């Protein structure tokens, strides 16, 4: 079906009949300003196809103009090779008529039935599917109820024809039920993130298992503790039985008694040993004292002898020290005298050398003074000359005056030359020996041309005087003016004439040269200035008259004598130092010898005194000492013999203590064991009576069941997940297959607008529900208005193409359908419209006249309808 024309009469603003057409294939544009009636066209078409001619519904009344009256809408369609005309009237003389190729074929209800068949099979769905109203961006049309269902059916019919029934492909209600049940059961077990859901069977099984595991661990610990206690008690009981064994106790008692008796015996014997020890100690002490006395007397006698010998030796050493000191003192005196003599000689030589040097410096100063005095004189003379020349320079004409006067002179000369050149000339040719004539008193030589002055006289010897009046006043006046200016300037400087002036100029120039020369001479003689020369002169020694100029040796000779005296002085100084050291050491040795002598005298005196009262050295004393020693040895032998019979007392004590300790420790241990056994028994009985082992067995049994349950639920969860995954995967694949044809039509259209974009389809509405751009899912209702309207149009274009491929052409009508799109997108959409157009019929209604010029489509317009 293709629309060829539309006619409206008494429809809203069109009170007079208007028609649009002819409408061709491809894209056509009806561009008109707002309220020109574009939307009225779509409303009228909708009424024509979908509202019965008897309807007085609000939508029909809305088509009536303010003035009222019956509403008429008609159109021509090209279908099945014939031209059909459909026309309806509402709200007065209602009618419906259908013509085929000009012949009325249906009217009234028959016409409505024909239209109903047409719309139900195609146009009903097509209208909603392909007609986009002004401001409609959603994919679903704004139709409701039966119309909406018709539109859905139309899409379903189209896609089913291409891909098969959607239910058959995607599983339909059975698939939905299986998916729903599986998802519900899975959701009862786990959360969306795959964790056990609180309150669900899986969660309960996991929690039960965890609780039982925890209980099992706690009970195991209690059972282990109880069994450890039982083992400990068994061990403790066995040990206690050993400790309390009567035979063991009797043996222990006997051992202790025996050890105590041995200790008592040993202690008695030990007392006797201590007595013998005391006796032996007394004897040993007496012998030791006697020996000490004997040794002391011997030592004192030896000491007295040693002191005598030492004192004698010290006395000799003192005498030697005194002699050495005397020699050293004398040597020091001699060395001191030598040093003094050498020093005097050296001082004299140095004095002579200094006098010679003073004399030499005085001579040098005298020479310098003479030179400086001469330079000063020359410099002062040059300065005097320079000042004189400077004065001359100052008196001469200045350079400016010179330039001025010379310019004036030049002017005067030029004026004179001009006058001269302009003046009549006089050339004399003389007869041989004829006297020369004079012009203005100047003889005129033969053949020489002379200018005649304006007012002059020629003296002709012999003849008289010729007065000249040339009458050349102009040249003469210039000459005179120049000459007057020159004369006035010369007069201002006081120069009589130009020659006097030039003489003064030369004198000045000469004085300037002289002044330069005088300055150069002065600067050469005194480069640092005359004052510097005077200062240098004043710095010279004032008077050298006192320097002796006679009886002084040659300086080299004096210098040699000084060097010789210095060497000698150095030598005697060394000798003096040596002598001093020797004398100092001899003095020190003498003091030491004196101190030693005094000390040894004292020691000798003391030793004599100590030795004075000593007993005599004789055999009786030796015998008494030997007897005492023998008595001490005897006592020691007797003691040692007794000690050898005493047993190891400490060992016996240790044995007693050990046995006593064992008894006490065992009693203590037995007491502790009884307490320990009581404690263990208490704990064991408590746990035993609580039945911890039974509880542990019960928990372990429950654990087995809980693990089985947990495994079973986990298995069930895996099964549900597997099933859900399989169902979803299959459904996705089926949906993809179902929507593949429309997707293929859309692909190039989407590419015109976006890179890497595709649409996700709803198998409920059979319309896109998401736009996927570069992998990101965007629900359509969150997209911008522009994007939504672009998708709405592209989808309709794709459906229209699918219909066309199925041989069911239907017009696509877009009523201001691109209101939100920007300029770039509009152009892209225009491209898409033209790409999709082919043999489709696309009718674009727009109020944006200028913007839609770029659509490049044939333009339609309202025009008065021809009389029918």
């Amino acid at each position: 079906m293709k629309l060829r024309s539309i006619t409206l009469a008494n429809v809203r603003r069109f009170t007079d009949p208007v028609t649009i057409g002819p409408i061709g294939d491809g894209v056509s544009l009806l561009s008109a300003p707002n309220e020109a009636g574009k939307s009225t066209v779509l409303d009228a078409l909708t009424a024509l196809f979908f509202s019965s001619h008897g309807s007085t519904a609000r939508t029909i009344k809305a088509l009536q103009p303010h003035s009222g009256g019956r509403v008429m809408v008609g159109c021509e369609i090209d279908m099945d090779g014939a031209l059909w005309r459909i026309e309806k009237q509402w709200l007065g003389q209602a009618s419906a008529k259908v013509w085929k190729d000009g012949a009325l074929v249906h009217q009234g209800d028959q016409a409505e039935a024909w239209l109903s068949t047409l719309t139900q099979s195609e146009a009903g769905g097509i209208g909603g599917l392909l007609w986009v109203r002004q401001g409609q961006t959603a994919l679903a049309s704004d139709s409701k109820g039966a119309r909406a269902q018709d539109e859905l059916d139309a899409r379903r019919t189209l896609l089913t024809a291409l891909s098969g029934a959607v239910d058959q492909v995607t599983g339909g209600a059975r698939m939905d039920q299986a998916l729903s049940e599986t998802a519900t059961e899975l959701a009862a077990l786990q959360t969306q993130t795959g964790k056990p859901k609180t309150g669900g069977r899986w969660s309960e099984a996991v929690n039960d298992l965890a609780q039982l595991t925890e209980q099992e661990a706690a009970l195991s610990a209690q059972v282990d503790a109880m069994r450890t206690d039982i083992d400990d008690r068994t061990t403790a009981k066995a040990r206690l039985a050993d400790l309390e064994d009567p035979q063991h106790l009797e043996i222990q008692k006997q051992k202790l008694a025996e050890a105590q008796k041995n200790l008592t015996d040993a202690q008695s014997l030990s007392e006797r040993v201590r007595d013998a020890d005391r006796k032996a100690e007394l004897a040993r002490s007496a012998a030791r004292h006697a020996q000490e006395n004997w040794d002391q007397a011997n030592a004192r006698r030896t000491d007295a002898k040693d002191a005598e010998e030492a004192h004698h030796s010290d006395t000799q050493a003192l005498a030697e020290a005194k002699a050495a000191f005397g020699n050293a003192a004398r040597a020091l005196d001699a060395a001191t005298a030598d040093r003094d003599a050498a020093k005097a000689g050296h001082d004299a030589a140095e004095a002579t050398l200094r006098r010679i040097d003073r004399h030499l410096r005085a001579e040098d100063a005298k020479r310098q003074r003479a030179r400086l005095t001469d330079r000063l004189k020359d410099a002062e003379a040059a300065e005097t000359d320079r000042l004189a020349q400077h004065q001359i320079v100052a008196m001469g004409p200045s350079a400016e005056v010179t330039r001025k006067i010379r310019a004036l002179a030049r002017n005067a000369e030029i004026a004179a030359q001009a006058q001269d050149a302009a003046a009549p000339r006089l050339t004399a040719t003389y007869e041989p020996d004829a006297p020369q004539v004079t012009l203005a008193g100047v003889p005129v030589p033969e053949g020489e041309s002379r200018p005649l002055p304006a007012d002059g006289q020629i003296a002709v010897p012999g003849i008289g005087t010729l007065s000249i009046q040339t009458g050349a006043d102009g040249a003469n006046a210039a000459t005179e003016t120049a000459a007057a200016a020159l004369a006035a300037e010369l007069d201002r400087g006081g120069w009589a004439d130009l020659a006097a002036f030039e003489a003064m100029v030369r004198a000045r120039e000469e004085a300037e040269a002289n002044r330069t020369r005088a300055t150069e001479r002065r600067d050469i003689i005194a480069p640092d200035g005359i004052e510097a020369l005077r200062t240098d002169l004043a710095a010279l020694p004032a008077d050298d008259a006192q320097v002796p100029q006679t009886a002084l040796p040659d300086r080299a000779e004096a210098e040699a004598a000084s060097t010789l005296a210095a060497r000698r002085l150095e030598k005697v100084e060394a000798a003096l130092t040596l002598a001093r050291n020797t004398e100092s050491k001899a003095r020190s040795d003498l003091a030491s010898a004196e101190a030693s002598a005094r000390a040894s005298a004292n020691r000798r005196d003391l030793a004599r005194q100590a030795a004075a009262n000593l007993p005599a050295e004789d055999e009786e004393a030796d015998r008494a000492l030997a007897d005492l020693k023998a008595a001490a040895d005897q006592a020691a032998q007797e003691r040692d013999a007794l000690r050898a019979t005493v047993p190891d007392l400490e060992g016996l004590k240790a044995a007693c203590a050990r046995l006593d300790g064992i008894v006490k420790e065992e009693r203590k241990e037995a007491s502790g064991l009884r307490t320990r056994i009581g404690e263990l028994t208490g704990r064991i009985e408590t746990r035993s009576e609580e039945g911890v082992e039974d509880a542990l067995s019960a928990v372990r049994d429950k654990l087995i069941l809980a693990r089985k349950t947990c495994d079973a639920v986990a298995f069930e969860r895996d099964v549900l997940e597997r099933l859900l995954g399989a169902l979803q995967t299959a459904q996705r694949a089926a949906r993809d297959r179902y929507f593949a044809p429309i997707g293929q039509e859309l692909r190039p259209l989407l590419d015109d607008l976006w890179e890497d974009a595709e649409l996700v389809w709803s198998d409920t509405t059979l319309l896109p529900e998401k736009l996927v751009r570069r992998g990101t899912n965007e629900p359509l209702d969150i997209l911008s208005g522009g994007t939504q309207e672009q998708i709405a149009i592209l989808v309709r274009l794709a459906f229209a193409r699918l219909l066309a491929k199925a041989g069911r052409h239907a017009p696509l009508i877009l009523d201001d359908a691109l209101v939100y799109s920007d300029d770039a997108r509009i152009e892209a959409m225009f491209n898409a419209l033209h790409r999709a157009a082919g043999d489709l019929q696309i009718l674009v209604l727009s109020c944006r006249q200028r913007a839609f010029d770029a659509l490049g489509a044939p333009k339609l317009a309202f025009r008065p309808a021809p009389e029918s």
Partner: protein
Amino acid sequence: MAGIRFLHTADIHIGKPFGNYPAADRLRAARHDILPRIARLATEHGVAHVLIAGDLFENPNPAAELWRQAAAVMAEAPVDWWLLPGNHDNLGQSGGTWDGIDRLGHPNIHILRKAAVVAMADGVSLLPAPLMSRRPHEDPTGWMDDAVTPDGHIRIGLAHGSITGFSEGEMPDDVIAPDRAALARLDYLALGDWHGEMEIGARTAYSGAPERTGFQHAGRGGVSLVEVSDAGATPKVTRLETGAFSWHATTLDLVPGDDPEAAIMAALPDGPRRESLVRIVARGRLPLDAAAVLQDIAAAVAPDFCHFELDDSAVKADIAPADLDAIAPSGALRQAAQDLADQAADEERAERDRAVARAALARLYGATRGTAE
């Protein structure tokens, strides 16, 4: 000499929790009820002695109420109880249970703490082999060979442990010499530890547990009535059923074409179902619909029994195109079913992974049954 008649039992395991059975309370209660039942049997059969060959208690230190109640029951019965500590209630780990029973001072309760001859009755010597640990590694009956008893005395051995491979798992295998009765000149060696009744020889036998403890031993538990007429005479052993619960474990090998309902019904035991515990392990292959029937039948009969469990994890799904057609002949649902079937058949996947796929497919089959278009 009049000989002797006594009841031989063992492995009562008072205090066993049965925590992995939903009917644990009933199973635990049954263990308490077994002693009065044995006492009544003794009275009925006119015997004066009951020998318990170990493991009267589940643990060495049961809760006080357990051993006190057990002692009270035994004390009231007009028989002598000869109690041998087994491995579960061994002496070494006992903190006070046996001492506690002793302290109660009941003259008819004899706790056999030592491996020493005990005068059991006139002309009868009892040779007990108490255990000191949970896992003894030496034959506790070894001492019996050299045990001296008065001439002409009947020698009754009483021991707990495995012999010729009969072990409940905790005891080391073959601790007790199989020819101990002959070596020690025993007229009868009463054994415990194996929970099923088992005659090892003419003079050696396990009585089994009087109340079963698991599916390993089918049917009901019982005790042995032993009669020894004289020293050297062959004992006469009579089995007396005592168990309140009957235990049954069955394995079903299924192949496509089998009727799962018939198979299950045939495997169910006779007798009162409320006192029966059933475990059915199904193996083999079944189509999806038959596998679903198997589960449905199991779910239907399970409430009749004290305990019923079906383990069909070893049943492989025999997936036929018709099964997949039943889910959906085409479309996405069919594709999902096909994917799961392929995963279940993929030999390169781990067994659990394949089992998950099989179960998912079975679930899908169940979910879509009855919703076919």
